[in-house]
């Protein structure tokens, strides 16, 4: 298919394409340049930062999932020595606006502190600002609140019914969204197909749960009226004017300073409540105020629960295993608010048919509000869930046919000559060689060996199982996925840029400024250093990286949707290109050479084939700053460039949404294969083998990419086996701390072997695709498959997660 691309974007892709000469720095497993400060304990996370006269805040959380606030008595709290101010929803109502939301629905209002009623267990009902956090928490205990407890809406199916209590009276119903999308001729395809399998599946709520919670320091300067907020969670620099709206200050007077985050996995993705709240507290008391979520608060109040969905799904296929059509019906329990609209389903629609040639797909969605902490982003952002659904259907189809689970997948893979591949929804897969990845993982895994091993073990009464799973890994979202759900969206942005600026100091040192809160545990500085090294032939460890605050920032979206490596590479390549143009002009002028005869080498620029005709970057920079009369006559002083790199391939949906456009076009592909042994007496699952092969286009740094793959796989393992929000019948979260919310430890996880294949993207700088979410997209499906296989003597069908030890023992007991 023909694809029209933004000329700037295509130029960058063309200039940086992995060429025959090979790349010198991109592709090298250099040590991460971020590491040394973290290894020394000098990371400067948000709680490490102290400002003069800083106060500390704590919040009081609602003990009820749904209740009207009848009265709040703050007098005892205010009287406690060391308390500066106690604030409630009435103060928010008087002095602030609601928090911004991508759902743009005025019926669903979210405030920093609950105003008239609370809508989920743990929602903030009051805040204390005090001299230290200890006193602030003491004061919270002294706040007396009278509630009128309301019936909690906890079941999304019941929540849709007439007469259900309403989470938002102003909305008038709990079903915030309902629509069916149809691509192709689904009914006919189902009717014509020889067979079908169907599943009812449940994917419960879990959350990203980084070790570093959300935190921020608000610092209001009454003199200038500038509110500075240091935050570990603010991206989307071009949306920050919305925060200023909440705070009722001019957006030009809002300065967000990015702070390193100890992990995110989505939970810091435009996580605006905590920074806005800290900023507001500072406005209210006139001093710096630090607010850090404690762990319990983070679990119950973090605005980023993962997907919580009930599915009915069907796959139509032929007797020879050819897939024909897919039908998916989803009821999504969003919780009390809808900050991203239904963007987590947009994600799914980017790769809903997986790596398979399925031409007809129907997707029905009902997004329902309930009295729970709202959904947000968690690694995969909804695509990991639809992968699970699809792979379960494929496993069942294989079982139905008595066909090998690898062979049925191989048969339906999109072939290497089919790219760019137009999927039924309108999104494309830019490039790929899926059979190549499969062959690689088979070679590593030794599939036949493990099949025999499993069969022999079964004869001995052991419960060994094999799981195989294929998955797409879409990367670099466009902002259209947040609003193409509506025929007439209230707000329909099409921008999702990333920016970088490069300055070369008179001493020749290269300084790159990033324009997002970019450091979550990914490797933004290493990526940038490697790209700069590639562009200028300098030592990557010599590059200095800084981060712009929002007053000085160009538009930046930040990490999320596996986009940052791709987008920052494009931004740096763009700025580098401009920088190199200027350097060449200066050098050509000074060396009296043609620009075309110049090359970047050894930390400088020189005439090809003439080693003595060279200028160092310092020589060039000195001229640029100090020696104007040595520059070409029309050139201004200075040596700094910047580039805002827009999403290189975004197109609009059509009017009736039968074509959603291209919104997530850089798509990687991966296979995992695993062998497990299940102890039917205790439910414990051990790993005998785990192989993974990922194709994320051009790999910048294989060592750090492996870290993302393993980390993502282990998070998926947590989702598959351990993690779930548990509620009582009143909507209280029962596992609101680490005693009962179980994260995988080093003893619960496999050792993986990881292989790579690189099928570059034609559209991105260096052909890079994003890969940060990848591992998590596969593990739930592979664990379901492997445990089901291990327990096949019992005829088990896994239809919900997590696959708990208790459930395994119950299946094996069969009574």
């Amino acid at each position, binding site marked *: 298919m023909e694809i029209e691309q933004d000329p700037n974007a295509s130029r960058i892709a063309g200039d940086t394409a992995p060429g025959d000469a090979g790349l010198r720095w991109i592709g090298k497993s250099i040590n991460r340049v971020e590491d040394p400060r973290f290894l020394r304990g000098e990371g400067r996370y948000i709680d490490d930062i102290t400002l003069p006269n800083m106060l500390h805040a704590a919040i009081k959380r609602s003990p009820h999932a749904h209740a009207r606030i009848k009265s709040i008595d703050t007098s005892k709290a205010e009287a406690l020595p060391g308390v500066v101010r106690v604030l409630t929803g009435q103060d928010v109502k008087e002095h602030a606006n609601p928090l911004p939301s991508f759902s743009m629905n005025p019926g669903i209002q979210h405030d920093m502190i609950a105003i008239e009623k609370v809508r989920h267990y743990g929602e903030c009902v009051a805040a204390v600002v005090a001299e230290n956090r200890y006193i602030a928490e003491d004061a919270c205990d002294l706040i007396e609140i009278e509630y009128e407890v309301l019936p909690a809406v906890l079941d999304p199916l019941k929540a849709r019914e007439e007469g259900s209590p309403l989470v938002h009276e102003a909305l008038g119903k709990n079903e915030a969204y309902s629509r069916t999308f149809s691509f192709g001729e689904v009914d006919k395809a189902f009717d014509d197909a020889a067979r079908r399998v169907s599943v009812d599946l449940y994917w419960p709520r879990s959350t990203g749960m980084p*070790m570093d919670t959300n935190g921020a320091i608000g610092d209001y300067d009454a003199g200038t009226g500038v509110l500075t907020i240091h935050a570990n969670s603010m991206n989307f620099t071009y949306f920050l004017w919305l925060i200023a709206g909440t705070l009722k200050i001019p957006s030009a007077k809002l300065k967000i300073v990015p702070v390193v985050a100890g992990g995110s996995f989505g939970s810091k993705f435009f996580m605006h409540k905590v920074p806005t709240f800290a900023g507001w507290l500072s406005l209210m008391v006139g001093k710096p105020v630090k607010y850090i979520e404690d762990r319990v608060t983070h679990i119950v109040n973090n605005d980023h629960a993962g997907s919580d969905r009930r599915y009915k799904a069907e796959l139509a296929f032929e007797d020879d295993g050819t897939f024909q059509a897919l039908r998916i019906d989803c009821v999504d329990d969003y919780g009390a608010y809808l900050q991203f609209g239904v963007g987590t389903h947009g994600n799914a629609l980017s790769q809903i048919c997986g790596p398979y040639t399925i031409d007809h797909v129907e997707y029905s969605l009902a997004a329902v509000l309930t009295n729970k902490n709202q959904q947000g982003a968690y690694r995969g952002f909804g695509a990991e869930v639809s992968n699970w659904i699809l792979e379960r259907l494929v496993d069942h189809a294989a079982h139905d046919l008595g066909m090998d689970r690898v062979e049925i997948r191989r048969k339906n893979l999109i072939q290497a000559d089919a790219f760019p591949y137009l999927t039924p929804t309108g999104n494309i897969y830019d490039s790929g060689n899926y059979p190549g990845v499969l062959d690689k993982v088979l070679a590593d895994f030794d599939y036949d060996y493990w099949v025999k091993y499993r069969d022999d073990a079964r004869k001995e009464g052991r419960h060994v199982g094999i799981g195989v799973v294929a998955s797409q890994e879409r990367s670099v979202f466009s902002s259209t996925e947040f609003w193409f759900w509506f025929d007439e969206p209230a707000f329909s942005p099409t921008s999702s840029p990333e920016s970088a600026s490069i300055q070369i100091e008179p001493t020749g040192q290269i300084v790159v400024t990033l324009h997002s809160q970019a450091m979550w545990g*990914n490797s933004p500085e290493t990526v940038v250093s490697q790209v700069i090294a590639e562009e200028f032939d300098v030592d990557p460890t010599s590059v200095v990286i800084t981060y712009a605050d929002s007053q000085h920032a160009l538009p930046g979206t930040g990490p999320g949707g596996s986009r940052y490596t791709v987008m920052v590479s494009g931004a740096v390549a763009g700025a580098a290109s401009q920088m190199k143009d200027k350097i060449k002009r200066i050098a050509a002028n000074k060396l009296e050479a043609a620009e075309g005869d110049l090359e970047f080498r050894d930390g400088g620029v020189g005439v090809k084939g003439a080693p003595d005709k060279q200028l160092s970057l310092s020589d060039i920079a000195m001229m640029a700053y100090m020696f104007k009369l040595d520059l070409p006559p029309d050139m201004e002083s200075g040596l700094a460039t910047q580039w805002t790199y827009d999403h290189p391939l975004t197109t609009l949906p059509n009017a009736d949404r039968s074509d959603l456009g291209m919104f997530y076009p850089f798509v990687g592909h991966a296979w995992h294969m695993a062998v497990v042994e299940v102890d039917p007496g205790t439910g414990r699952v051990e790993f005998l083998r785990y192989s993974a092969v990922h194709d994320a286009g051009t790999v910048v740094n294989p060592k750090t990419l492996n870290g993302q793959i393993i980390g993502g796989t282990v998070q998926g393992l947590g989702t598959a086996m351990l993690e779930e929000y548990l509620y009582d019948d009143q909507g209280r979260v029962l596992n609101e701390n680490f005693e009962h919310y179980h994260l995988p430890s080093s003893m619960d996880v496999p050792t993986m072997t990881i292989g790579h294949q690189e099928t570059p993207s034609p559209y991105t700088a260096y052909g890079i695709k994003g890969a940060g979410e990848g591992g998590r997209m596969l593990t739930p499906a592979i664990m379901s498959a492997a445990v089901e296989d291990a327990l096949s003597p019992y005829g088990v069908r896994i239809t919900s997660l997590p696959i708990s030890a208790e459930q395994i023992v119950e299946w094996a007991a069969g009574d």
Partner: protein
Amino acid sequence: MSTIENQLVTVTVNGRTYEREVEPRKALSDFLREDLELTGTHVACEHGFCGVCNILLDGQTVRSCLLFAVQVDGASIETVESLAASDGTLNALQQAFNDNAGLQCGYCTPGMLMTAKEYLDANPDGGTDDEIREAISGVLCRCTGYQQIVESIRAAASAGKGA
């Protein structure tokens, strides 16, 4: 309201002796971070279930969020700040983590390093991978999935030195 007296604590941290007055309820983790401004030790759960706050107390790992500063009067503590040289050069254990991608966000890393140091001091040859995994089983990491941490610790042992 509080008639609770502050107590004097004298404690050696990373070879330097400090004397501070603290409220009895001041957690050791907060004492290190706030009173001594050693922010390398991090807190992730503050109720003793994650190990991110691990430090060495008289040579043994302990969860610093479960101790009160008043309890370490007279004791000797080592935190992550003790590992690198005074000019910032990473020690062999830290370098092994850098070489083997043993960290991503870095938040659990101080706790992981002190736990690894304790393990390697007792097992300089590194032991088996299972033993390494067991040694760090009480420290949660949400980023790495542990595999590259195990490789880092094994590499540190192979380099012939612990921490």
